[in-house]
C-alpha cells in the first residue's frame, strides 16, 4: 500500500445555521480544504462524501454528485462516492479515500462530510438518529437513541461504580475546550451543576449529557505521500486505520459496558501504525453522549477498563493532560452534524499536529487519533495520524 497524507483541511462553523443549505455547507468546507492544500481543481481525482441521511433530513439523495457539481467540478466528470454508515460515515469515507490512493488508483482525493439537521423538527431529527439502531427490534418498542446509551451508562455505573458527576465531567471538559474553538457550536463553559440539574432525556442521561443537533460540514484533501511533499512541508500521514462492526442491536452485544467494535478497530489501527495508545498525545473520540467518551477512552486503552469516569473527573483527559481528548469541544460542544463528524475529527487532529490549534494547542503533539461510532456501536472507525516531516 502507498502512504497517504492529509495536505489540506477545512470546515464550516457548526450550529443551527438557518440561512445555510446543505450545498452551501458542503461547498464551503470543500473549497476551504482545497485552498488550504493550494490545489487546482484539475489536480483532484475523486470525491468521497460522508453523509448519514440527507434523504430524510432534506429529502435529497445523490448528494455525492450534487456536492461535486456545486463545487464547480461538474465539467471534470469526477467519480463521486457517498458513504453511509450511521454516525461513522465521515470516518468511513476517509478510509475509502485513503484506500483509493493507497491502491494506486488515485493520487489526490477530497473527502467531505456534511449534514443539514435543522430543516426538520427536533423530534423528527431524534427519530432519524434513532434509525441507526435496530428499527424492528429496538426503536419500535419505544427505545430512543439516548435511551440505548442511557442503558449502557446504567450498566457501567452498576458494574464499575461510575457516577453521574464523572459523566458530567466529560461535558464540562468538552465545553471548556469548545470555548477555545471559534468554529464550535457552543463556545461557552458550563459548570458541573448545570449538567447535573438539566432535565432528563433518558435516565441517567440529562440534556447536557447529549450532543446537540447541528448543521455543518468538514473536508480534507488526501494525497499520495511523495506527491504530498510538493504541496506542503507538514504532510500529516495516516499511519493506521481500523474499522469494525458488531451486532446492530445493543441487546445482542457481548458486553453492554464495552464496545467490541471500538476495541477491534483500535487494535487494527494501532497494529498497522505499529504504535501503542501511549504514543498518542491527542484524540478526538465519539462523545455523542457523555458515557460514550468514557467507553471510548477505556476501549481504546488510554485508561484501564472501568476507570474512564475517575480519569475524566481527575483531569487526565483535559487539554494538555495525560492525553488530550476532544480538544475541538467534541460532538458535545463543537456540534454533531452527523456526516461531518469523522471528517471534522480529522480536521482537528491535523490542526493539532501542524501546531495550528491556537488557544487549544496540545504542546508537542506529534501523533493523534480519531474514533467514530455508527449507531450504538455497531460500527467503529479509528484513524491514527502522525506528522510526516
Amino acid at each position: 500500500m502507498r502512504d497517504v497524507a492529509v495536505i489540506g483541511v477545512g470546515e464550516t462553523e457548526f450550529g443551527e445555521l438557518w440561512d445555510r443549505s446543505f450545498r452551501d455547507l458542503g461547498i464551503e468546507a470543500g473549497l476551504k480544504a482545497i485552498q488550504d492544500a493550494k490545489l487546482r481543481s484539475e489536480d483532484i481525482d475523486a470525491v468521497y462524501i460522508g453523509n448519514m441521511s440527507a434523504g430524510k433530513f432534506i429529502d435529497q439523495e445523490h448528494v455525492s454528485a450534487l456536492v461535486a457539481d456545486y463545487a464547480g467540478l461538474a465539467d471534470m466528470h469526477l467519480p463521486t462516492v457517498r458513504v453511509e454508515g450511521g454516525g461513522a460515515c465521515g470516518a468511513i469515507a476517509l478510509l475509502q479515500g485513503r484506500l483509493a490512493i493507497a491502491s494506486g488508483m488515485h493520487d489526490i482525493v477530497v473527502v467531505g462530510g456534511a449534514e443539514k439537521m435543522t430543516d426538520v423538527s427536533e423530534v423528527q431529527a431524534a427519530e432519524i438518529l434513532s434509525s441507526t439502531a435496530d428499527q424492528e427490534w429496538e426503536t419500535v418498542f419505544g427505545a430512543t437513541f439516548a435511551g440505548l446509551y442511557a442503558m449502557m451508562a446504567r450498566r457501567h455505573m452498576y458494574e464499575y461504580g461510575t457516577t453521574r458527576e464523572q459523566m458530567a465531567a466529560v461535558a464540562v471538559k468538552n465545553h471548556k475546550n469548545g470555548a477555545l474553538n471559534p468554529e464550535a457550536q457552543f463556545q461557552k463553559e458550563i459548570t458541573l451543576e448545570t449538567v447535573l440539574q438539566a432535565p432528563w432525556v433518558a435516565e441517567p442521561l440529562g440534556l447536557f449529557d447529549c450532543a446537540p443537533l447541528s448543521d455543518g460540514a468538514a473536508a480534507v484533501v488526501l494525497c499520495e505521500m511523495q506527491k504530498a511533499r510538493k504541496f506542503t512541508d507538514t504532510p500529516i500521514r495516516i499511519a493506521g486505520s481500523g474499522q469494525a462492526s458488531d451486532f446492530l442491536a445493543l441487546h445482542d452485544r457481548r458486553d453492554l459496558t464495552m464496545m467490541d467494535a471500538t476495541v477491534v478497530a483500535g487494535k487494527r489501527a494501532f497494529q498497522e501504525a505499529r504504535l501503542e495508545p501511549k504514543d498518542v498525545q491527542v484524540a478526538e473520540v465519539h462523545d455523542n453522549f457523555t458515557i460514550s467518551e468514557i467507553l471510548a477512552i477505556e476501549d481504546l486503552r488510554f485508561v484501564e477498563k472501568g476507570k474512564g469516569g475517575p480519569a475524566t473527573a481527575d483531569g487526565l483527559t483535559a487539554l494538555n493532560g495525560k492525553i488530550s481528548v476532544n480538544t475541538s469541544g467534541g460532538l458535545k460542544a463543537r456540534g454533531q452534524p452527523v456526516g461531518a463528524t469523522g471528517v471534522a475529527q480529522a480536521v482537528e487532529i491535523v490542526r493539532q499536529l501542524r501546531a495550528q490549534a491556537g488557544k487549544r494547542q496540545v504542546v508537542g503533539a506529534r501523533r493523534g487519533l480519531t474514533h467514530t461510532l455508527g449507531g450504538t456501536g455497531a460500527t467503529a472507525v479509528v484513524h491514527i495520524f502522525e506528522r510526516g516531516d
Partner: protein
Amino acid sequence: MAIPRFWREIQSRYNLIGTKCGSCGKVDFPPRAVCPTCGRRSVGKMQRMRLTGKGTVVTYTVVHDAPAQFEMQKPYVMAIVQMEEGVRLTSQLIDVSPEHVKIGMKVQATFRKLGQEGEAGVIHYGYKFRPTA
C-alpha cells in the same frame, strides 16, 4: 411503518418465536437464518422455538424525551431483558413505577398494544414486560 412490515414480524412480536441452533443449541431472538456462533454449519439447522417469556432486567432507562408515537406514555421505562434461554431483547417495562425498577429484577412478558399508525390507523401489538408476581 407500512402494514406488511409490521405484519411480517407478528409471530415473534406476539408469541416470542425465536430460533435454536441445531448445531450449538444457542437460542436467538428474533429468528436468525444463521447462528452467530456456528456460521455456515448452522444453515438449515435453525429450529423455531417459543421463549417462555421469563427473564431478568440487565439494564434499564426511564425515557423522558420520547418519539411522537410514545409522547402520551412518557416517562416510561425501557429495559434490556435477559431471557431464561440466554438471549436478550429490548422492551418496555410496565406495571412498575420507575423508582422501583432494579437491575436483576425478575420480569415476565405480557401482550400489549405497542402503538398505532396515526389517529385512525392500524394498531400494533407485541410484548412488554412486567415484574413477576
